[in-house]
């Protein structure tokens, strides 16, 4: 069964304390992995797309990496404004039909 698991469920960091969020997946026909940021009561905001193992993407304090079984979102020297829920989604293809499968997210709180 296709599955996307994010860990930890919640994470509290001090400002400047770097850490990583994990997204592990068991999906057949993987066609891509996406990271989103979601603020309370808002829709998810697109961050990164990763298509193949070994690929890395960076944006400000965020860096996403991908292996054959998992992806990491590294947060370097986070600031309070980085507090949000981070979602990952995998895109799988079955018989020419594409479908996103989302994880339940990691709630990140960065304390000043």
């Amino acid at each position, binding site marked *: 069964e296709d599955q996307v698991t994010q860990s930890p469920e919640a994470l509290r960091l001090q400002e400047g304390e770097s850490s990583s969020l994990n997204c592990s997946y068991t999906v057949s026909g993987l066609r891509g992995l996406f990271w989103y940021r979601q603020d309370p*009561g808002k829709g*998810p905001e697109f961050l990164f797309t990763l298509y193949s193992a070994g690929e890395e993407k960076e944006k400000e304090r965020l860096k996403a990496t991908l292996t054959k079984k998992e992806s990491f979102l590294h947060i370097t020297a986070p600031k309070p404004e980085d507090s949000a829920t981070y979602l990952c989604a995998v895109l799988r293809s079955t018989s020419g039909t594409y*479908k996103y499968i989302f994880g339940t997210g990691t709630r990140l709180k960065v304390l000043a």
Partner: protein
Amino acid sequence: SQTIHQWPATLVQPVGSPLSLECTVEGTSNPNLYWYRQAAGRGLQLLFYSVGIGQISSEVPQNLSASRPQDRQFILSSKKLLLSDSGFYLCAWSVTPNTEAFFGQGTRLTVV
């Protein structure tokens, strides 16, 4: 640039009443359109997707329906709401089925 509009932001409806949520996309043609529902502690659940006018695919049999009367308009409807229809509804679009999706700001629906 492309933008997505979704309204209303919040909605409180009695059980048994009808529902109509609207979503429009600007700045692109023939987008792939999606309706998702997000429940607390659960990943985003795909409800409907559309690759073109009048073409609707349903992922989960339920009390809801979707329509795409125009290229950039996607409507989520129900004839009679149930308590279990409460949730956070998100509209999204993508250029192709295998690229990142961009989300609207969501509608918080409470059925009372």
